[in-house]
């Protein structure tokens, strides 16, 4: 891996194909949840702990600190601000992300992709061709399918760790052969939804309590693998427009305006995966999910799907206390 071209990314709306096609080495960072306080000189403590964990870890690492941010939420934008302030000599880029998936959103995002391509060419001397972008897209699609195949039958913590490994691996640097294997049919099947979780925290407590987490609708879990972003088109511009449509059409994060579609997908996936209930677990201070939860609660109630709400501070030192609640929930939904 070329250290100088490694670029950190954080939000799953990052157009990895474009970064790959530019010859950069994008790798997802998850930060260090145990040293959040290191970020206190730059970020208020009531900011998303994932954001603080990422900054805290980077402040203790040697450079370069090249990073790619998506303007997906207040937390991410503030991470960009703090990163840029802290590492002024590094490549720190902020890409906009519309909330609307419709025609204006597509125009805005396609424009952002064009802006990014120009910026990468100017800054890094990259030449992004339609062929290069198509090849990068195919490689990302292969990786996505490979994840889904490998993860089939895996549950809970091991499944989440695999997803994170795939996110963190540089392009071409991932061999999933020999990984995987079924976790076994035991446990009560549940679907886990929320934003982003520490695999050693809430998720492991679900495993320990006897749940079988069959689908992980998290931003560091299955969600980004559930939709293809393979673009079609002849020239570069057509490809970028197609890519914008694909990103806006994927399984949405709660920050998007089409939250109704997200809730429909949640119900469909819960039923398709044979889950007996849903655990909604999210990091503190994430507004997108704080406001989403009451609507999910109402929707699942109407659908007759049992729901448990858990909260995480990312380090999850309190998982032992969660066990009792999780066990009670599992007892309630046990067939």
């Amino acid at each position, binding site marked *: 891996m070329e250290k100088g071209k490694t670029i950190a990314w954080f939000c799953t709306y990052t157009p990895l194909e474009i970064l790959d096609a530019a010859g950069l080495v994008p790798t997802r960072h998850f930060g260090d949840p145990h040293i959040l306080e290191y970020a206190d000189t730059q970020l208020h403590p009531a900011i998303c702990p994932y954001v603080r964990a990422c900054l805290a870890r980077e402040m203790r690492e040697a450079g370069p600190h090249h990073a790619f941010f998506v303007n997906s939420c207040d937390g991410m*934008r503030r991470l960009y601000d703090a990163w840029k302030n802290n590492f002024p000599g590094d490549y720190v880029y902020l890409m906009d992300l519309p909330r609307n998936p419709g025609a204006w959103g597509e125009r805005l995002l396609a424009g952002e992709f064009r802006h990014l391509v120009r910026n990468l060419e100017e800054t890094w001397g990259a030449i992004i061709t339609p062929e290069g972008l198509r090849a990068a897209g195919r490689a990302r699609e292969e990786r996505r399918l490979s994840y889904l195949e490998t993860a089939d039958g895996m549950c809970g913590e091991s499944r989440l760790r695999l997803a994170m490994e795939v996110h963190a691996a540089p392009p071409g640097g991932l061999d999933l052969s020999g990984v995987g294997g079924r976790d076994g049919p035991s446990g009560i099947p549940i679907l886990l939804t929320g934003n982003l979780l520490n695999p050693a925290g809430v998720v492991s407590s679900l495993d320990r309590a006897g749940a079988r987490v069959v689908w992980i609708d998290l931003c560091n879990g299955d969600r980004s693998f559930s939709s293809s972003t393979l673009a079609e088109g002849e020239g570069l511009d057509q490809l970028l427009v197609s890519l914008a449509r694909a990103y806006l059409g994927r399984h949405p994060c709660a920050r998007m305006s089409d939250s109704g579609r997200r809730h429909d997908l949640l119900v469909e996936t819960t039923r398709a995966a044979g889950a007996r209930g849903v655990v909604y677990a999210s990091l503190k201070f994430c507004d997108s999910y704080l406001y989403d939860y009451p609507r999910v609660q109402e929707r699942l109630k109407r659908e007759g799907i049992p729901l448990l709400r858990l909260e995480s501070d990312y380090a999850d030192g309190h998982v032992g206390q969660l066990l009792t609640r999780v066990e009670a929930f599992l007892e309630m939904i046990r067939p």
Partner: protein
Amino acid sequence: MGLLEDVRDRFIDKLSPATLHSRLFWKTVERLARSPLNRPQWKADRVSLSYFLRITRDAYSRRGPVVWCNLLVPSELIIGLGCIPFYPEMAAAVVASAGLAPRFIDRSAEAGFSPDACSFHRCMLGCAMDGFLPEPDLLLAVNYPCDSAPLSFAHVAELYDAPQVIIDIPLPGREAGRALLAGQLEDAARRLAGLSGYTAGEMEKGLAGALDLSNRALHYLREVEELRKRSDCTLDGKDAMGNISVLAGCMGSEEGVEFYRLLARELAERGCAGGDSLRLMWMHLKPWYSQKIFNILDRYNVRVVCEEYTHSCWEPMDPREPFLSLAGKIGGHFLVGPVERRASHLASLAGDYRVDGAIHYNHWGCRQSCGGALQVKQALQAMGVPTLLLDGDCVDEREYQEGQISTRLEAFLESLH
């Protein structure tokens, strides 16, 4: 028991949604507002009060299509298209001022809203769930200054089965960003015209008229800003902070022009109070339920001479190009994009108003303001302006840590002296 508590217990606590929808209630309130019993500090305040009472009454009695807006939605767009703007974030501040916020915040908690979310929005949601707010025909939010409005409005849209429109303001400096924003505003305008029944000609005329009024208000607002830069200007920031509602909700109305015209005239007439008080800049908002912080400032002979959200930050608009003009106004707002824009705006204000110090009130749950507060502090301190970050809550009085706030504030003020 004090008079305020007495009034609250006897009347305000007994408010019901039915009261707010009754003609008699609004007639009484408007009469009280006009009566000699109401003696505002500034004549202009009578104009803004009368305007907000009228449009709020109209919203409750559904005298026109009601459009809920967040702070950066330009009121010119709503007023110019014959709709009634309703700013629920400001309504939450009014509810907090009346001491009623805890009741509605608790209501939103019962519905599953986390105490880690912004209390302006939790209060608004609680009010909406209990039927205390005027029913929206449409909810219009822009994606700044914060995530909360597009997200909380989605819940209200579902509650009232009303459509929600979100406008994506592109990042500053993007090619075609202004045209993209103008296009979205034009689409939203068509929806508003559909609600009010405006024809294309009426749309054009209405918007041109609203932009013209907004330009005239801007002219007087800039006069007010110049007058406020004088030493010991008599308008104290603790009172001026409420003018955020005028800046957000009155631009495009006759009353917006009249408010700033009267304020400028009165500031010029009253002149300067003299004295040697220290000058302070206030960032973000204040606790709406209490004046205690400002009493401490008074005790230390410190005055708030400028506030973050009550100043103009746009150029006069071209009434013949309403959408591009409005796109320029909101797209260029200092809260749009990276925090360096906000920090630079505040540094510039601090310089223009020759402040001796600055306070950033860290409203709990506000990721956009608290999130960037440390960078703002760095920028101000780099230019020699001591800055205090004060944690608190603007709406929920139960989260006001009086002892801690007083101790930190007093230590800061002593250091300024």
